[in-house]
């Protein structure tokens, strides 16, 4: 029997709203009644979408919440309630409880060498000499897999790659010999292969050091292989918790089901999103938080928060738990592969090369040394086809998309219906340009924050030469409805709608130009899991009904495989493999594409590693 390192009992957090003074009435509960255990040498996963309160829980344990937060309940660490300590005592505990944050670049001090940052915790807690702490830091950096650590000790964070920075952060947390390590979305923003390595590293360290690991993530598929225990949060409350293998074998709560069904996996035919949005703190429904979005909802659900049901292994707070329904069954319906007919290419890229960044300075930087970000790429896209471009960051996949949009200068030729844009007159060029539209990654960035939704879509129509007010209005409403939005949203500003809605508005704006091609540049990566699936479904519907061709760019091969007819794997600016989706997913020829495919979540392939086994 392993010892309990951390035990949360009825942990609750209230935070002041952003607007207005800190009044009692303005406090909103962001986390309520959380019970959780982390045991020695085990990984406990805390899973939830953004706004679920998962990060708040971690910061509450570390006592690092912004001033004005009200914390209730207990956080027992080695039998001692961390919430009852004064600040000085708490400071001594931090370190024994280590924390690794999301976004390692901003979490590291940019003007301090990594050696000093790694050594800082060790020196503070043991009073070791600078020399000893330095030696210790070299050992730690070696342990987390930084090659040649003694030499890199005096370098600064910006000299490391994203994955290495996260390794440095982990080393800095390890420096204080923590009994408990809290990792808050440590792999978000990293490439899938790197994320996998970081996760494996954490799992290994946790076993080697007999630490308890509290792993916070939005991605259930990520923790499937490593977690022993798990807790799913929704809108500030735990909906299901218990032993991870039992959970993945038989999830009970409708939200857990929905979350599992919403993540695209290789080999999956249907994606089920969750309609609606998570309620904000202060506007949460009485009773079950998930009830408004739940397909199983009955009247009793809204009366009181449901009591937990289940066995000794997993429990769910639900009145009507789901039983034997298997998760995201593979239905026989396979995506209709539209093989491009020869000679019918809508878009052709012929030996396109892009050498350096878009706006390299006249005075800054040497140009010759930089490797081309896109190297001799040739592609064809047929009418109505969806071509997926997959690759890691820096592979040139976004550059490729921007080249198709003529946002960059390139060598080689890009032809639309056999004609190059540069050969046309300025007027024709504008018209041709409208035939290729784009949906960007971050929906908030892609909508002008000071224009109303209606005006954003009307702009697209006006630039196409339409100016009749009534007709504009009618078309705007029709477009909003076509992407599944209420026409009443037209009067809102972008910051008054959710991220998923904003991304639909971006799709509607693209449709307004009546394009032949839409470039989808990581269209789902900024969205929550449940919203992602909804958008992917919408995109698939549109392509089937409108003869639209897509170029979908993503690092998520599973999402691409779900939508694309063919997939091009890009690495260091070159296409290493271009094949139909079926072929690439099942029989990749190139070793690099094989490793990408292997890192993606696959339907029914959940393998749980038990400590000691690996």
């Amino acid at each position, binding site marked *: 029997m392993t010892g309990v390192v951390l035990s949360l009992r009825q942990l609750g957090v209230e*935070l002041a*709203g*952003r*607007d*207005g*003074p800190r009044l009692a009435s303005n406090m909103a509960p*962001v986390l309520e009644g959380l019970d959780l255990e982390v045991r020695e040498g085990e990984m406990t996963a805390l899973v939830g979408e*953004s*706004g679920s309160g998962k*990060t708040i829980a971690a*910061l509450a344990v570390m006592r690092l*919440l*912004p001033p004005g937060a009200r914390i209730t309940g207990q956080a027992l660490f080695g039998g001692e309630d961390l919430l009852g300590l004064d600040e000085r005592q708490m400071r001594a505990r931090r370190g024994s409880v280590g924390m690794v944050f999301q976004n390692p670049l901003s979490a590291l001090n940019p003007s301090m060498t990594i050696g000093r940052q790694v050594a800082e915790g060790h020196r503070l807690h043991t009073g070791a000499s600078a020399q000893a702490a330095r030696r210790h830091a070299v050992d730690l950096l070696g342990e987390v897999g930084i090659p040649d650590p003694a030499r890199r000790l005096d370098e600064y964070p910006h000299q490391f790659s994203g994955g290495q920075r996260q390794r440095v952060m982990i080393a800095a947390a390890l420096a204080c010999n923590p009994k408990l390590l809290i990792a808050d979305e440590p792999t978000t923003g990293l490439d899938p292969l790197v994320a996998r390595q970081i996760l494996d590293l954490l799992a290994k360290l946790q076993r080697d050091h007999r630490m308890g690991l509290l792993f916070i993530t939005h991605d259930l598929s990520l923790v499937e292989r490593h977690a022993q225990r798990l807790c799913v949060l929704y809108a500030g409350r735990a909906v299901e918790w218990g032993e991870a293998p039992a959970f993945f074998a038989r999830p009970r709560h409708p939200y857990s089901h929905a979350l599992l069904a919403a993540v695209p996996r290789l080999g999956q035919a249907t994606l089920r999103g969750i309609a609606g949005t*998570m309620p*904000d*703190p*202060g*506007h949460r429904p009485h009773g079950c938080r998930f009830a408004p979005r739940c397909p199983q909802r009955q009247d009793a659900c809204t009366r009181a928060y449901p009591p937990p049901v289940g066995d000794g292994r997993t429990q769910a707070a639900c009145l009507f738990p789901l039983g034997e329904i298997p998760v995201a069954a593979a239905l026989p319906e396979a995506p209709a592969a539209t093989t491009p007919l020869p000679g019918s290419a809508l878009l052709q890229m012929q030996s396109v090369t892009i050498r350096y960044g878009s*706006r390299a300075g*006249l*005075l800054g930087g040497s140009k010759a040394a930089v490797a081309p970000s896109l190297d001799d790429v040739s592609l064809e896209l047929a009418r109505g086809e969806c071509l997926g471009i997959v690759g890691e960051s820096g592979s040139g996949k976004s550059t490729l998309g921007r080249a198709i*949009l003529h*946002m960059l200068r390139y060598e080689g030729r890009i032809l639309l219906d056999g004609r190059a844009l540069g050969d046309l007159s300025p007027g024709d060029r*504008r*018209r041709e*340009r*409208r035939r*290729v*539209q*784009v949906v*960007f*990654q*971050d929906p*908030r*960035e*892609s*909508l*002008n*924050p*000071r*224009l109303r939704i209606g005006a*954003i879509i009307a*702009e*697209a129509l006006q*630039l*196409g030469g339409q100016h009749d007010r009534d007709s504009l209005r009618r078309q705007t409403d029709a477009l909003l409805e076509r992407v599944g939005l209420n026409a009443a949203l037209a*009067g*809102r*500003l972008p*910051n*008054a*709608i*959710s*991220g998923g809605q904003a991304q639909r508005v*971006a799709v509607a*704006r*693209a449709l*307004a*130009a009546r394009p032949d091609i839409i470039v989808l540049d990581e269209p789902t990566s900024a969205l*929550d899991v449940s919203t992602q699936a909804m958008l992917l479904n919408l995109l698939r519907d549109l392509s089937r009904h409108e003869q639209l061709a897509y170029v979908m760019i993503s690092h998520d091969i599973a999402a691409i495989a779900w939508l694309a007819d063919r997939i091009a794997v890009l690495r260091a600016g070159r296409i290493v493999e271009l094949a139909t989706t079926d072929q690439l997913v099942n029989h990749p020829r190139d070793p690099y594409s094989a490793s990408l495919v292997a890192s993606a979540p696959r339907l029914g392939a959940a393998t749980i590693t038990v400590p000691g086994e690996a």
Partner: protein
Amino acid sequence: MLDATQQPVRIGASSFLARLLQLRPGNATLTAGLVLAAIILLASAIGPVLYGRDPYALHTASVLAGPSAAYPFGTDDLGRNAFARLLVAGRSTLYVALPATAVAFVVGTLYGLASGLGPRLLDQALMRLLDAVLALPGLVVLIFFGAIVPLNTGSLILLLGLISWPSLARLVRNETLAQRDRDFVHASRQLGGGLAHIAGTHLLRVMAPVLVVNFTFLVGDMIFALSALSFLGLGVQPPHTSWGGLLQEGLELVALDAWWLVLPPGLMIFAAMLATSLIGQGLLARGGSR
């Protein structure tokens, strides 16, 4: 620490007045600034008419008299009514400073937009020129030109306006560069939007809060520059007067301890600059971090 999605969703736009009355950070500052600015504007615009005393009449019987019922702010060394002079001085100060701000604002914004949106080479050329211009302290250049051009209302407006735009131009240019690569601008270009469309529909609109704040700061800077110039005898020329000119007259008589000639014009400049600073700070605080 809270991500954006956790912010309560704001629905619709509440009226400006309703938002003003809420006690949000910055509102007290903004309100104080607006009230102060209104008082100064009113005093300068209709003050001289309401008070009705001749600011140029020489009351030789009461030269350098201290404040009294007849002369609330005393008289100067020629026996002129200091209060009446203070009111018309405000009028002529704002009469130059406000149009000059408009000139500087327009020139600076256009220069910045041209530099930020134009081709790389144009941007480089414009910025080198701007660096060189910015290396010259504005006031020094003003004094230089003040010495060589005939000074009247029109020339002062042009002089102040054409010398005070560079810092705004740099700001607009940097802001343009920051905004022009945002996704919604790219989306608009892809829809066929030209440079003028992008600048008008997107850039200026997104920059509007920044521009408004900087316009208020620019008004303050302009009042300061004109007052300093007048204080040095190179601004508003006699027989007209300005706050800076009054203060200079006061300083010349400082040995006679005529504090009533020093305090009121000085305080008026202080109040005007305080008002613009308060408005600017208030707007900044309300806008928050966007």
